[in-house]
């Protein structure tokens, strides 16, 4: 549905988007993840035809976003970072206006407006002035605006920014509900958001793609193996020996010094094993069998946040090396 190839956008010397390529299949939700200023908004603006690219191509439903902009615009719904609202209009008037400029046939406008309001849970507020709505409702109007013409592709720039946790939950739920029928690209700098809503993630940093994969793959791939964290009462040295003797264990880190644990005779340990193995049961039985008191044992799931940090800091380290070499 969406094909982006070697996309470049320069402002003078600076490259806001630097050779980005990716594809999105029909019905997929793709997350754009990156720190502020990474090039997410710029990429989205190129896709919507708002900005021309400096190089590379982008096609939506087979149409070039620059050469066949009108065809593309008919097929996309776009929610910019600040929802494009007319505060003095009512919700339904506003959506009817958007439907008309998006090319919805005059006879279909009322139906499409009603449908968009139903999907965004706005029906009760349809006669209210937009300026009287809360931030969360304004955001919903913004999303309704992006789907009112039933577009193939919906592009949402930071759809949950500035909302309270309840509103965020609602908006995410709404976005999930759109998938399948619509192909969705959403950008965010909030990591759990991507984990919760997206099928695939593109991590962008400084205009380049740092990683691109499914959400699950990214998590497993990058953590390099399973991790189990535990806390026991006993001696640190014998614990290390006991753990190291368990088959399948790759690496053991024992730490009793931190947080003054030693005084209580407590030891923390982190065990790394091959990916795809679950050693928790085996570890538990060995520890208890070895005469330790097992206080805590849990598998550590590397969140996207960790991955993200890893990716972006690695890049920084590389840059430093390059800087030194030069």
């Amino acid at each position, binding site marked *: 549905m969406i094909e982006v190839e070697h996309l470049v956008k320069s402002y003078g010397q600076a490259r806001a988007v630097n050779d980005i390529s990716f594809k999105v299949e029909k019905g997929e939700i793709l997350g754009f993840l990156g720190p502020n200023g990474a090039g997410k908004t710029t990429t989205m603006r190129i896709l919507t*035809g708002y*900005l*021309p690219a400096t190089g590379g191509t982008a096609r939506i439903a087979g149409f070039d976003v620059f050469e066949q902009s009108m065809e593309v615009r008919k097929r*996309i719904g*776009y929610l910019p970072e600040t*929802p*494009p609202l007319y505060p003095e209009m009512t919700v339904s008037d506003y959506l009817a206006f958007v439907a*008309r*400029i998006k090319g919805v046939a005059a006879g279909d406008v009322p139906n499409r407006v009603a449908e968009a309001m139903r999907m965004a849970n706005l029906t009760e507020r349809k006669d209210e002035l937009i300026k009287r709505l809360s931030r969360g409702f304004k955001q919903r109007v913004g999303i309704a605006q992006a789907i009112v013409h039933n577009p193939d592709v919906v592009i949402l720039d930071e759809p949950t920014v500035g909302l309270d946790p309840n509103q965020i939950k609602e908006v995410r739920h709404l976005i999930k509900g759109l998938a399948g029928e619509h192909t969705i690209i959403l950008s965010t700098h909030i990591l759990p958001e991507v984990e919760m809503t997206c099928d695939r993630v593109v991590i962008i940093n400084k205009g380049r793609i740092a990683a691109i994969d499914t959400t699950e793959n990214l998590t497993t791939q990058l953590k390099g193996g399973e991790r189990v964290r535990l806390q026991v009462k006993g001696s640190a040295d014998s614990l290390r020996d006991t753990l190291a003797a368990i088959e399948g264990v790759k690496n053991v880190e024992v730490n009793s010094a931190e947080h003054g644990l030693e005084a209580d005779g407590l030891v923390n340990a982190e065990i790394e094993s091959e990916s795809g193995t679950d050693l928790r049961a085996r570890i538990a039985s060995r520890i208890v069998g070895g005469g330790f008191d097992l206080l805590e044992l849990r598998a550590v799931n590397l969140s996207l946040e960790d991955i993200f940090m890893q990716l972006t800091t690695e890049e920084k380290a590389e840059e430093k090396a390059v800087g030194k070499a030069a």
Partner: protein
Amino acid sequence: MKGILAIYRRELSGYFVSPIAYIVIGFFLALTGYFFADIVGRVIEYSFRAQMQSMQMQGAPPPIDAPMLVIRNFAGFVTTILLFLVPMLTMGVYAEERKRGTMEMLMTSPITEFQIVVGKFLASLTLFVVMLAPTLIYHFIIGRYSEPALPWRIMWAGYLGIFLLGAGLLALGSFISSLTENQIVAGVSTFVVFLMLWILDFGVRGSSTTFGEIMKYLSILQHYDTFAQGVIDTSSIIFYLSVVALGLFLTLRNLDSMRWRRA
């Protein structure tokens, strides 16, 4: 056409839900009403005095075309006041859309920039007509009691002139509004530009150099005088239509170039 209509309808309703249209129209009607009464009063006083003088001198009174004087003075006043009021109408046309981010939505919708520009211009022109139309009542009232009859031809010519001048000012004002995100900056700049166009010929009055002629030609109120005399002059019509076309063209170019300049 559908796109133009959609933009036009939203724009027009936008004017009437914000206080600015009511303030400008109210102010315009109050001022024009007051001045119309004032002009009529003065013309009556003037003709009385002329009559008295001629009675004392034992001669026939000098011919005074009172209705014509009323219309000419009134139309002259209206055009001057437009220089102050039009900036208030046009300052937000594009600046406000840019500030709110709705411009981004318009520019990513399947409508052309031409449709946006024309729709917005027609809406501002409609508002202008709505503002101007009630002043016709003054003339109809005075026309009922006028002896000899009001020269309607001159009145309509005068109104055509006001309409064309207004259209030109609206197109220029909208263009200036498209240059900034700040309504106040747009309003003040528009006013300054109008003032310049108005006083352009002040310094060269009576001069017949080429430079003076050019300045006179460009002075935006100059062309209005022929209409106020009841003459529908093609060159003046063309002048105002060119101003409209220039304003709309520049707006169009500016919207288009924004795409390339934006960061």
